[in-house]
């Protein structure tokens, strides 16, 4: 595909979300109600009626189906429905790529990307593995869970441990990701965790899966979020200046599979990464842009090391140098590359990446709480782990 084929072919015109709850807080409402509220709020933000939505895009086997959403809102017709494979927030950018392709090809006119999480409905990841018979439909789980690899933290710790071993990455580098998230969240009244933390707090927080500590891990949340996408022409009549897609990509490197969610046969360099080396290559290729063009980065921060590894994968620094890269305030507000000015998964809410897109849109509209001056280009990096992971570039 030639460079810039998708550039300015799709516009993000409405962002919405529910209140940000702790795990189980919205159990009485349920996942589908959260999805519907997020859609209503995104439509209100755009100045569109939910009835005008004719396309639905999501990821991670989201339970709010196009059938249920279109019926609930009395949509005139459904023209597009797409789901990206893989769990967690890895496919988030892929859901935006699918939506943009549907818009750019004329398949649909208004596509909504949705993700709603209500942990009480879906069950917790590790607990499901520990308490149930392992499913024959996912034979790879039988090669991990019986050996005690039960939680996401166990898996990400394996990558973090080897990165430390190979490159001398320090726990203080992981701490900086958590500290930055909390500092950013101070200006975000909706954020779940707004108390500042120190390196000492981080290093003294209890071990979860060595080397990962409590403050390296984001907290599960009950939340719904939605983003509306339409054509740049249609966007001109809507409420806000349009934010345009500059490029998007999804995938994984050679023999990545599910990465360290399993032992894998990926190369050592990919094992000690966020698995986003090839997604980054493709993003820069299809967009015709480079890391130097990025004004603000929204990097999926389920676990602190993945921000450092993601910055390496996307070429902001060389392989292995992500730790030193985040030193000295470089990723803080006012630094050379502000990262997650909304507080991210770690401090704002864990919405499987959707709130990173919401923040990118606010930054490019110029109305973010922690506004990066003259932000013209935002990079949004989806979750590391499953195949496919994904990313998008947004411009104003």
């Amino acid at each position: 595909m030639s460079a810039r084929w998708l550039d300015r072919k799709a516009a993000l015109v409405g962002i919405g979300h529910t209140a940000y709850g702790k795990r189980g807080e919205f159990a009485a409402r349920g996942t589908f109600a959260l999805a519907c509220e997020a859609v209503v709020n995104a439509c209100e933000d755009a100045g569109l009626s939910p009835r005008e939505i004719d396309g639905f895009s999501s990821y991670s086997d989201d339970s709010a189906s196009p059938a249920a959403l279109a019926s609930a809102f009395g949509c005139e017709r459904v023209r597009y429905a797409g789901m990206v494979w893989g769990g967690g927030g890895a496919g988030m950018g892929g859901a935006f790529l699918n939506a943009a392709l549907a818009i750019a090809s004329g398949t649909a006119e208004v596509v909504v990307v949705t993700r709603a999480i209500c942990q009480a409905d879906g069950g917790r990841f590790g607990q499901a593995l520990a308490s149930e018979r392992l499913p024959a439909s996912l034979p790879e789980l039988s090669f991990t869970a019986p050996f005690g690899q039960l939680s996401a933290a166990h898996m990400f710790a394996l990558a973090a441990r080897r990165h430390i071993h190979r490159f001398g990455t320090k726990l203080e580098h992981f701490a900086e990701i958590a500290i930055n998230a909390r500092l950013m969240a101070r200006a975000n009244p909706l954020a779940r965790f707004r108390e500042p933390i120190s390196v000492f707090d981080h290093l003294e927080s209890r071990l979860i899966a060595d080397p990962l500590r409590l403050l390296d891990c984001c907290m599960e949340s009950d939340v719904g979020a939605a983003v509306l996408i339409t054509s740049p022409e249609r966007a001109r009549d809507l409420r806000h200046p349009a934010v345009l897609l500059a490029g998007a990509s999804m995938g994984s490197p050679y023999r990545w599979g599910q990465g360290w969610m399993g032992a894998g046969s990926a190369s050592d360099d990919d094992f000690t990464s966020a698995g986003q080396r090839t997604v980054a290559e493709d993003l820069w290729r299809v967009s015709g842009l480079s890391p130097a063009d990025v004004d603000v980065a929204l990097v999926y921060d389920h676990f602190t090391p993945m921000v450092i590894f993601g910055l390496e994968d996307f070429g902001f620094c060389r392989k292995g140098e992500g730790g030193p890269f985040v030193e000295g305030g470089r990723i803080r507000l006012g630094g050379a590359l502000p990262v997650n000015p909304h507080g991210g998964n770690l401090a704002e809410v864990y919405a499987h990446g959707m709130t990173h897109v919401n923040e990118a849109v606010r930054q490019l509209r110029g109305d973010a709480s922690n506004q990066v001056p003259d932000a013209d280009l935002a990079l949004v990096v989806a979750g590391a782990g499953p195949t496919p992971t994904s990313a998008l570039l947004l411009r104003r």
Partner: protein
Amino acid sequence: MARRRALLPAPTPTALTAGFWKAAAAGRLVIQRCDECGAHRHTPTAACYRCQSLAWSWDPVAGSGRVFSYTWSHHPVHPALAPLGVYNVAVVELDGTEGDPVRLVTWIESVTPQTLRIGLPVEVLFERIDDEIGLPIFRPRV
């Protein structure tokens, strides 16, 4: 070890994986190997990544390797797992396989946080569950 075995879920064998678990129950480590080009692969799958052949066999391997990475789990993901206490999960890369590295998720017996390290030479041993299922685990090689 027995307590660990009792608390964690057992593998669910499938058509592709039953041979692996059954061999481990009999005290043997077998890895899928391509009949055409000889490449080893794990976890079990239906095609060879190198030559795309669908023909394969179980190959008994020596079961020596090195610790590629590890973690010590401190937080029980389920209250029922609290009796496990602090335990390790490791990735072991096997010696002497053909093709891309062959790595297994496992755990390492007879180590402490002071002695478990990346690069530690290890050898396989087995935790038998029943006639059909065993778990290959590892201990430091002497």
